[in-house]
């Protein structure tokens, strides 16, 4: 289910485009400003790095939530990182297809857990009934004996939970 950002020259490039590969490497390593343990590539919001007809690097990014205030910060961070590496780039915001937590890589999920944020449980698409709750494992002790405190947490993408075994309060990266 995880998706790796692609480059336009993935298939059968006649000459290896080291500049493009370098741009992908630099862009992929940019951390998320609000959840700095994961990169934009880990989250699946870096959609592609390619060259346009003029040869300029074009980076496509997608927002997590419509109103996510970090969108501009992320775009600027990627542009700045590329500039620091000597790469001039154009940032494009793409909204189709809509981002889903299914695109967070397995490595990204493990990084979130290690950071103290429970990664999204299962896949998206289920429309849960009123008062239905996900079973979310505590990122500290692993217990599934946890309680949802609020579906809306410290950022748009997170809910607030509490572990009923080790008493740890924690963020849950909710499914969308």
């Amino acid at each position: 289910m995880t998706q790796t950002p692609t480059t336009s020259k993935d298939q059968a490039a006649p000459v290896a485009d080291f500049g493009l590969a370098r741009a992908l490497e630099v862009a992929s390593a940019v951390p998320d400003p609000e959840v700095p343990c994961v990169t934009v590539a880990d989250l699946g919001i870096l959609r592609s790095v390619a060259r346009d007809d003029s040869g300029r690097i074009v980076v496509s990014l997608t927002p997590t939530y419509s109103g996510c205030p970090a969108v501009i910060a992320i775009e600027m961070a990627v542009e700045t990182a590329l500039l620091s590496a000597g790469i001039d780039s154009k940032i494009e915001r793409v909204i189709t297809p809509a981002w889903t937590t299914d695109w967070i890589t397995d490595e990204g999920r493990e990084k979130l857990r290690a950071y103290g944020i429970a990664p999204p449980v299962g896949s998206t698409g289920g429309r849960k009934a009123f008062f239905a709750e996900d079973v979310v494992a505590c990122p500290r002790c692993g217990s599934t004996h946890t309680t949802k405190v609020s579906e809306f947490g410290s950022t748009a993408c997170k809910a607030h939970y509490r572990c009923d075994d080790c008493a740890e309060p924690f963020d849950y990266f909710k499914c969308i």
Partner: protein
Amino acid sequence: MATADTTVPAILEIADDCLILGHRLSEWCGHAPMLEEELALANMGLDLLGQARALYAHAGELEGKGRSEDDLAFLRRERDYVNCLLVERRNNDFAHTMLRQLYFAAFMQPLWRAIAANSSDETLRGIAAKADKEMTYHLRHAGEWVIRMGDGTEESAARMADAVDELHRYTGELFMASAARTAAITAGLLPDPEPIRAEWEETIATVFAAAKLTAPEIRTWQKGGRDGIHGEDMGHLLAELQFMQRAYPGQTW
């Protein structure tokens, strides 16, 4: 192929609904009954503002007259806003705010889902796919609170009943197709609201049954917002919403 004359007014109706309700929710900042709700109300307001921004930017592009999302959000006169009356109703107490949110989310969630599946406009489908998922959370959150309060203490039940008595009459306008929306439906941009009404009614009936609330019989639905005829509250809302751009024209972050 729908022209900008058809698409822009229809998209503005939805954008204005999102902007005005998002602004109303932002008024709760610092006043919510508890910290978790403070965050939830701000989160939901932010989702709505994000949806409004995307819609305004898209409408401005389709219109092709150089109006930016800020121009559309901040620099129109009251009569040019075409939001429904429900979303401009003042926050009142937490019961009113949550009921208004339930009514709106129960309408928008199936509307976004239908747009995402069938709209003739690709950008709109993209905005809708994201908004659909966000409104699923709003709907659940608001529905759970209405149930909790309606089936709660004597005080909370009385407040919920008051809110239903006050706000239910504004819900009819959600399903009235204005001239703009009718044209957009014909052009395949927006879905017919009638199948959405059935889903809305089912959602409200489910929540009200669990909340021990009764929907009143409405003989005359309140309407006018789609024609720019707003209630007294709207002017006060716009005074605050537009103040910075009116006082410091063109100001940016």
